[in-house]
């Protein structure tokens, strides 16, 4: 099996710039793992929690440094080894977080179909009318056309993040190192992808068990 060092990943240059611990020798510190929730339903995270007893193994092997389900940290930390990113990039907050996590993470994983293809959040991309992007089209539909007489577009700078014109897959915004498809990926698939990483190896993403969308 390819190891991380043998198989250069797209972000290898970046990873080398960071002080990755993935390839560390004996006595290496625990892997610093983050999970991020962008525009998605959190189903991928729920599936992650379905890992059941593997979660205990994981807890021994990694340090969860940022996660909506297992950490209270509000600011994405520095020197993260692996980050599972659920969800598409739909608003400016998603975009900002994606850009900053890329700066601070050695190995970024698109976690689930939304991160990979924009999937369900990306359906709004189909609703752009001439001269108006999909954000404006869906907002006007929801807040003006279907509203009673008092309808108005939401406008709360700094509180409600602005929608991007199009919902984007993660890899159209930052380089991604590994893709873990599924809606959601099953717990077994997540485990099969994460387990090799714990020993510094790259998982083999092949065949219907590992690759099927949906």
């Amino acid at each position, binding site marked *: 099996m390819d190891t991380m060092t043998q198989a250069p990943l797209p972000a290898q240059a970046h990873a080398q710039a960071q002080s990755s611990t993935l390839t560390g020798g004996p006595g290496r510190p625990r892997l610093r793992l983050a999970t991020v929730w962008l525009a998605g339903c959190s189903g991928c995270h729920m599936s992650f929690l379905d890992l059941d007893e593997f979660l205990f193994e994981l807890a021994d092997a990694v340090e969860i440094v940022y996660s909506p389900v297992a950490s209270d940290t509000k600011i994405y930390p520095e020197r993260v080894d692996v980050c599972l990113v659920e969800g598409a990039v739909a608003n400016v907050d998603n975009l900002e977080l994606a850009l900053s996590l890329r700066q601070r993470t050695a190995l970024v994983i698109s976690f689930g179909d939304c991160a990979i293809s924009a999937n369900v959040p990306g359906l709004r991309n189909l609703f*752009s009318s001439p001269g108006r*992007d999909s954000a404006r089209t869906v907002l006007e539909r929801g807040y003006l056309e279907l509203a009673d007489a008092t309808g108005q*577009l939401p*406008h709360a700078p700094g509180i409600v993040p*602005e929608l991007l*014109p199009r919902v984007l897959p993660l890899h159209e915004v930052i380089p991604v190192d590994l893709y873990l498809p599924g809606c959601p990926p099953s717990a077994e698939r997540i485990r099969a992808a994460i387990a090799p990483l714990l020993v510094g190896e790259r998982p083999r993403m092949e065949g219907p068990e590992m690759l099927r969308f949906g």
Partner: protein
Amino acid sequence: MIRRHGGQSHGLIEVLHQVQELDGFLSKPALLQVARGLRLPLSRVYGVASFYHLFRLQPPAEHRCAVCLGTACFVRGAGRLAVGLRRRLGLDLDQTSGDGRWALERVSCLGACGQAPVLVLDGVLFTAPPADQPQELDSWLTALGLPAAVALPAAVGLPAAVGTP
């Protein structure tokens, strides 16, 4: 007309040409008649009629402006001419205005490469506009009788609408 082509299915394109010449476009009733006459499936007739760019499935616009985007015209500024026309008519290429007054079309080569760039307005060829001088081009287009610039809707892809009053 169908009989003239021996009622044979391979005459479909010839028949469609003649129907369009008579009616100005290919209406659904006309296509139905052609299918019946040539003994062809409806979807086959529609598939052919919609494949070829010279067949019109909608009534033609009152005024038609075709800009040549052949390579010789392109090298001599047809792109800028096309932008000028799009701005003036408020239309994209191969689009007809909602009121049916104007249609902006692209053609690939009109064979007037010596006078490039060229455009055809209601069947009349106009040649060698000052494509690289925006203001002169504008008055050239005005002289042709094109409407003044229509404000284009904001381009798709601008930042999200949230926050705009």
